[in-house]
């Protein structure tokens, strides 16, 4: 694990050095670029005049004390920036995953149980659209329908800017407002969350429902399902308690993977819905060649992968007793 983290840091660091762009353009105003004094001063200020290995060692040293460096653009500590952005993304991703996983599992189970029926075909169509429609298309389309035309849901953003926000405890607006007992903010945040969470969750539910369907079909033909029926168990019990539990290992893998992917992969959704999260932060950083921010985002994304993988591995043990031996 520590080696993996070091690897992520190193690669993230090296990637920025091999990119063609000159970070100085982000720091120094265009008119000043021809002024060698200003350029030299900027280089010295950000340590860009030192050799690469030295910069790497300094970065590692700072990282050990929790310092991710200072953003060229915001001039704030990257760690602070990320801590401000991460909860917004996590809230969105959690909501999307809860929605997408539930829907995916329910659709997958129904599709497998009523194979080749209208439900099956409907679920397949829904999954196909979910995983093949680009989010910038479905997101904009849904925004247009529900926000612009029908006016049922608010437009982009995380919350109505006019509302006074509750104290940030978890960073999740919905939870913080609940903790503070502020129903207005809670409702507003929830309404804002609905569309982007649906758009993200839709893509996830497509993958999960196809996977669950395939695995359910496999498991439902196994003999222990027949045994359960022969015992007199109800169909609901047979499907949920006996069959579905046996499809959980591959499903967990995909859930974990999707979760980690969404933390940095929600870029388009965050951009469309003006969601102040990691994705939009990463886009801004990349556009401005803000290297410290890029490295910071990469590291956090990598860590998110590692942590979700670890959690997935732990959940495997719960889902599959055969793993427990080793």
């Amino acid at each position: 694990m520590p080696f993996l983290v070091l690897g992520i840091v190193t690669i993230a660091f090296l990637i920025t050095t091999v990119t063609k762009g000159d970070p100085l353009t982000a720091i120094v105003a265009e008119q000043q670029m021809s002024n060698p004094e200003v350029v030299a001063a900027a280089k010295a200020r950000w340590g860009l005049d030192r050799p690469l290995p030295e910069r790497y060692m300094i970065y590692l040293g700072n990282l050990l004390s929790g310092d991710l460096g200072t953003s060229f653009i915001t001039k704030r500590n990257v760690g602070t920036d990320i801590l401000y952005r991460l909860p917004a993304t996590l809230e969105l991703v959690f909501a999307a995953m809860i929605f997408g996983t539930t829907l995916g599992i329910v659709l997958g189970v129904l599709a497998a149980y009523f194979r080749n029926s209208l439900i099956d075909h409907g679920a397949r169509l829904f999954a196909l659209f979910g995983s093949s429609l680009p989010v910038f298309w479905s997101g904009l389309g849904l925004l247009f329908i529900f926000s612009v035309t029908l006016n049922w849901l608010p437009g982009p953003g995380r919350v109505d800017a006019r509302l006074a926000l509750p104290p940030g405890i978890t960073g999740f607006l919905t939870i913080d407002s609940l903790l503070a007992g502020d129903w207005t903010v809670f409702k507003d945040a929830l309404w804002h969350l609905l569309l982007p969470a649906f758009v993200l969750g839709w893509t996830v539910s497509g993958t999960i429902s196809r996977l669950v369907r395939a695995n359910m079909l496999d498991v439902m033909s196994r003999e222990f399902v027949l045994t359960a029926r022969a015992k007199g168990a109800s169909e609901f019990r047979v499907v949920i308690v006996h069959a579905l539990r046996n499809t959980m290992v591959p499903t967990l893998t995909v859930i974990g993977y999707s979760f980690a992917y969404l933390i940095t992969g929600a870029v388009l959704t965050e951009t469309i819905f003006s969601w102040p999260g990691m994705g939009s932060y990463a886009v801004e950083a990349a556009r401005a060649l803000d290297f410290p921010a890029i490295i910071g985002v990469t590291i956090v994304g990598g860590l998110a992968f590692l942590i979700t993988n670890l959690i997935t591995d732990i959940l495997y043990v719960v889902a599959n007793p055969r793993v427990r031996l080793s």
Partner: protein
Amino acid sequence: MSAQIYSAQSGAVDKAGERAPLLSIRGLRVGFRRAGDQFEAVRGIDLDVAKGEVVGIVGESGSGKSVGMLAALGLTSKNAVVTGSVRFNGDELVGKPAREMRKIRGARIAMIFQDPLSSLNPVMTVGAQIAEAVRLHQRVTRKQAMARAVELLHLVAIPQPERRVNQYPHEFSGGMRQRAVIAMAVANDPDLLIADEPTTALDVTVQAQILSVLRSLQERLGLGLVLITHDLGVVAGHADRVAVVYSGRVVEQAGVSELFADPRHPYTRGLIASIPNLEESRERLFSIDGSPPALGRLPGGCAFHPRCIYAEARCRAEDPPLHDIGGRFSACHFATTLPPFHSAVLATASLDNGSVAP
């Protein structure tokens, strides 16, 4: 035909000692619809099982012996069409609503399957699975059900049941798993246990143990036991009565000693002749020519006639019904006129034809 069958039933009842049969199957048919076509896997099974009786059902794989029993319990897949009559304690099971069938399955009639590896849920402890069977039919607490699970594991002679009850199926050996499956089946003191090839997937030594567990339970609990098998040896050693199934129909039914001493259907004769025999040294093991007809491709007349060494013109035209030949039943036109049976004779006859299958 039906008149003949009902007289047949009364004969079976007399044999079982004036009791009404526990399970009485008449004209059971199971068809499957697949891509517009319809196949009949079971083409009319008649069978009686009395209380406390052990009935063997013998037949090749694909003969419809398992499907027939699954259909009797309402366990066939959704595309199956089941017709005929299955009476359990006088209660008609065919067409019974699923909710009521669930109350019978596992409580009054239990069924166990061939492969103990896959008939237990890999992600639930063995105890939880037995306790589930208990709790599905009895109003007891979780704790009481687990205590009963330990008791049941003890009953099927699993050592250290208190420890075993919390283990998962993969921690059990094949024979132990089948014991656990049996424990689960008898959890609610059923009247009838249907065992579908219960020993096929097991080692020979373990097979004997499982059969003796089944027999001792059957005697102790007074179970009616249906042993579905392709192994005539199992039937010879354990069944009171045998039904031989060929191509979806019962072709012969008789008491076990009668059947082995004097089989009255050519297919039964072929089956018995193909049991390896240590006393008579034969160069080749006998086997019946040809293979069973594929589903939906039955020959006209008697389904067995293309493979039958006694077949005549009549067999190609007329499908013989299962008829009473004196307290036993055979579905052969020549049931009463077949020559005396000797397995070696049959083998020689086949060799003379020069058409012995390898």
